[in-house]
């Protein structure tokens, strides 16, 4: 009878499965290539592809309107973290021009149970900056994202820096003008 009462917690299982699947992917990539820079690049690329498609889901789900400045964008990014990864990074360290900020978190579901081999240059969570870049590109914002601190490398928190580069203009497809 105990089996009926001890049903699995679907939300927890799915989040764990995501973590484990991502872990399996990263370790598979490391097995295939010696070069961790390549792995970082691949992970960023995967994140980018996901971000490009994720933005539509985000807009549909939140009915967000256009952001007029970077501070609003930062709020939306923070909201997306909460929505998709159930984590709450803090937005800090704004540059004086207001075009550059940091996302800081001390717990991320993706990097749970991860033990890094001694410093080998792997950016385990490279998926996240990729996804931010991809998603923002779809709303005409060109940004640059990079890690300043990484908990997996012994830093107290993970800090991701986001820098606004330029507004992308809608390009008219060739032959349409």
């Amino acid at each position, binding site marked *: 009878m105990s089996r009926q009462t001890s049903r699995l917690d679907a939300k927890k*299982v799915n989040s764990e499965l*995501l973590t484990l*699947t*991502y872990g399996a*992917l990263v370790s*598979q990539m490391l097995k295939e290539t010696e070069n961790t820079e390549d792995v970082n690049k691949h992970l960023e690329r995967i994140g980018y592809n*996901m971000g490009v498609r*994720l933005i539509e889901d985000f807009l549909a789900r939140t009915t967000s309107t256009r952001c007029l400045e970077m501070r609003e964008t930062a709020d939306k990014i923070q909201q997306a973290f909460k929505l998709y*990864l159930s984590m709450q990074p803090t937005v800090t360290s704004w540059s004086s021009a207001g075009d550059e900020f940091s996302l800081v978190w001390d717990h991320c579901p993706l990097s749970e149970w991860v033990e890094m081999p001694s410093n080998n240059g792997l950016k385990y969570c490279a998926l996240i900056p990729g996804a931010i870049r991809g998603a923002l590109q779809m709303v005409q914002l060109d940004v640059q994202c990079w890690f300043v601190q990484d908990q997996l490398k012994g830093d107290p928190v993970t800090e991701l820096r986001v820098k606004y580069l330029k507004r992308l203009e809608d390009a008219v497809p060739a032959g349409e003008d």
Partner: protein
Amino acid sequence: MADDIIFELLHSEIINYSIEKFKNNDNGEKETDLSVVEYIGFAAGYKIMERLTREWPRFKDELDTMKFICTDFWTCIYKKQIDNLRTNHQGVYVLQDNAFRFLTNFSNGHQYLEYAPRYVAYTCGLIRGGLANLCINSIVTAEVQSMPSCKFHIHVQRT
């Protein structure tokens, strides 16, 4: 749930990654190599099963284990139960899902049928990995005859 989409996108990207890699080192084979996707499923399945069954009563026998996969396990991950479980009681199990999560977004016609194997490989690995953790060695294959229904064949390997 909002985070489901993350898993679905990651799943597609894993497939994408392994296909791109395959294209890069083209060695004349016609068939796409999905073993990487299957292996990622295996590794994830092996570990998740360890966590799921930690506080679960011991399974009575092999069939009981399969029932767990068809009901609780499947409901968690694929949002529904397996529709039909058949066995010949000699180590062959056929699990049929009439609306498999990773295939429901496809058109029901035959147009994309040739791509179906890509979207079931991860799950084959997931089942194989889960069973392996419960000390059942098996070979898992999938069969898609019409979208979005899918049959998983589990052949238990006895030594």
